[in-house]
């Protein structure tokens, strides 16, 4: 066991750190759900791409630099430590792209990944439906066979980024007589196509972060099916692993926030560095605990390069950690907390974590039944 980075990793880390220091915008960009924010975030993605940093692990021909997974972790840490803008393309970059690289054709990868890396095409996820949330296999939106492709009808909801995105990916029932997980097909569709209506939904934080998507006979060519028709569930579950796991929520968000929390606490407790450990008050104990957990998530990310961690365990850990971290920060700030935009934004965002990407109760079911081997609950 060792914690030393090799020379290539150190060189890469230094390059990223240097580039971010020179390029990260001084102030926050406008919100991604606004026209200005959309433009600014896409421009930022273009700059990342020109620096070869949009998606470092992808093959070079698709806009990456074929870097090892360790480098993606290092990039994530540097990115969050530098306070760089939210990735407008994250659903495509971290969820669709790994799915395409695993299940897509060479033509699909060549057609879709480069504009995604350049920030020219932003993707939304279209999975949940009004009656298919935690129970995703209950979805009813349909893909009907038509000459040369498929026709989509139905309703998707809680679709992140759909307000600003160009295209979306999701699951549709292509064999209406098949039930549950069978007869589903994984499709990509154009959010600007005839028959698509997007209705923004204001979130708890006030932003239109997600939306409903209504589909009324929307044509999709065969070339936009990922994997085999009818095999969508299997393909989707590989995306789910990325969504719940480290791909979407790298450790950088949590270690950066935990670092800020320790700074905040230390600022309130001059002399805290004096040796050796002073007795902590209850708030200090909580600050230390969340720092430990963020550190644990970071070390688990490094460890996962050699031994995979179950995605459901990862999702439970980061989402509960995020809430605990921000709750602690608000308590440390006390009555000033509600007026602190940064911590408030982080807190409101954290509250969604235990719900999206599969509610935590579902993750506990999966962990208990598929990893621990406990018997299924009779249904």
């Amino acid at each position, binding site marked *: 066991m060792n*914690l030393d980075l090799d020379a290539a990793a150190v060189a890469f880390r230094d390059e990223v750190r240097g580039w971010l220091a020179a390029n990260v915008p001084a102030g926050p960009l406008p919100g991604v759900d606004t026209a200005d924010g959309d433009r600014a975030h896409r421009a930022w993605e273009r700059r990342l791409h020109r620096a070869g940093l949009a998606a470092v692990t992808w093959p070079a021909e698709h806009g990456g630099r074929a870097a090892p997974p360790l480098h993606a972790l290092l990039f994530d840490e540097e990115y969050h430590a530098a306070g760089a803008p939210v990735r407008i393309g994250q659903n495509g970059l971290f969820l669709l792209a790994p799915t395409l690289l695993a299940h897509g054709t060479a033509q699909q990868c060549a057609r879709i990944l480069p504009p995604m890396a350049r920030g020219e095409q932003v993707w939304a996820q279209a999975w949940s439906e009004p009656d298919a949330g935690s129970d995703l296999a209950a979805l009813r939106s349909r893909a009907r066979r038509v000459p040369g492709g498929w026709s989509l009808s139905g309703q998707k909801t809680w679709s992140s980024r759909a307000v600003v995105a160009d295209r979306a990916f999701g699951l549709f029932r292509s064999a209406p007589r098949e039930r549950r997980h069978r007869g589903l097909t994984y499709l990509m569709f154009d959010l600007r196509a005839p028959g698509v209506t997007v209705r923004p939904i204001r979130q708890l934080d006030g932003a239109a972060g997600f939306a409903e998507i209504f589909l009324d006979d929307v044509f999709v060519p065969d070339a936009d099916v990922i994997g085999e028709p009818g095999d969508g569930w299997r393909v989707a579950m590989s995306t789910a692993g990325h969504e719940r796991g480290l791909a979407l929520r790298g450790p950088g968000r949590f270690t950066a926030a935990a670092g800020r929390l320790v700074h905040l606490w230390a600022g309130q407790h001059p002399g805290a560095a004096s040796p050796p450990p002073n007795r902590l008050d209850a708030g200090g104990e909580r600050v230390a605990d969340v720092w430990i957990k963020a550190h644990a998530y970071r070390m688990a990310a490094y460890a996962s390069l050699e031994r995979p961690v*179950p995605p459901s365990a990862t999702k439970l850990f980061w989402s509960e950690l995020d809430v605990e971290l921000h709750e602690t920060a608000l308590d440390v700030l006390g009555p000033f907390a509600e007026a602190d935009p940064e911590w408030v934004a982080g807190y409101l965002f954290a509250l969604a974590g235990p719900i999206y990407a599969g509610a935590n109760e579902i993750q506990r*079911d999966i962990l208990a039944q598929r990893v621990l081997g406990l018997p299924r609950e009779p249904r």
Partner: protein
Amino acid sequence: MRLAPSQEQLAFAAVLHAMLAGADLPKVAAAWADGDPGPGRALWSALAGAGVTGLLVPEHRGGAGAGPDDLVIACEELGHHAVPGPVAESLAAVPSLLSAAPPGATEWLPTPAQGRVIASLVAPPWLPFAVDGDSADLILVVDGADIRQGRAGRVRPSLYPARRLSEVDRGPVIVTGQDPGPALELGTLACSAQLLGAARALLEMSVEHARKRAQFGRAIGSFQAVQHRLADVSVAIEFARPLLYAAAAATGRSTVTTATGPGTPATATGPGAVTIAVEAGAVGSARVDVSAAKVACGAAARQAARAALQVHGAVGYTREHGLWRWLGLVRVLDLGWGTPSWHRARILSELADGAAGDHTDQPGGRRTAGSGQTAAWSRRDGVDPVGSRHARTGKEGL
């Protein structure tokens, strides 16, 4: 960067597991609890024969010259089987104290050849009693800058039945002027590994029981309330383990020179490497990593113990069932080698020190190593933390 056991280490763990699974631990522990250390001593001799007690003893002194990563592999397995006896003392802290001592003191090294394998330690305020001192071949006392030999006195019962606490009389000084810090770090690391192993055993027993035990016509493990509780335990274990491995790696980097002893050329991974590695974006000081591992492994083990007792129900509350061997072990180990509160405080102290010492420090990953003096295992500070802080800062307390 490697935070996983090697194939050799996995094989070593498997050998230990097989050996302990065949050692009738329930009987050994029951005898130990009843004041008969005979079967336990036989087990410890077998462990010594397998090289476990000599892991940290340098090769030129008859040991394996292994590092902290091998130590945590062994200690996790000992915790997994709830082996009675002063594990962290015998495997980690005492060998480390004596290995770093001048050559004249090494006659005291616990060595299988001399039949000395069980060693206990008193290091107030963290370790006020010698665990199983009445069964130990050697007791050391950390007394300021002196390391003394101790003599077992009055025995007190422990919350954990398979453990007896000896009050200790201070004997002759064996070593003087030696920083006990590295040895206490290694003991804490070993204790953390035991806790993680115990947590894993508690989860395994709970899952097994929940699969077999039926109520309301179905296995209790099919109830979501039981499933979710055990799922949470598995998450706690899953995310404590990387901290343990990281702490082992960080400790190995910072203590390998002292562990090899005087007269041995310093290796390339001496204390200086810590700064380099921190600069390389790996981790900060070994102290922070050891404290994080101790808190996380202890919390996972306590959570596992509570869940295990609840899942087992009344049968888990009996001495006929074996669960007691882990329940008590986990509770006392969590409090030894620095309480969770002490370790949390040390982490914040180190982090605040790094922040204060480098104002260009960015949050999240730019942490610099502490001053090197901060939050060391210092008896005076440990006894009177508030007073020492006042002395240092000259300011009012919190």
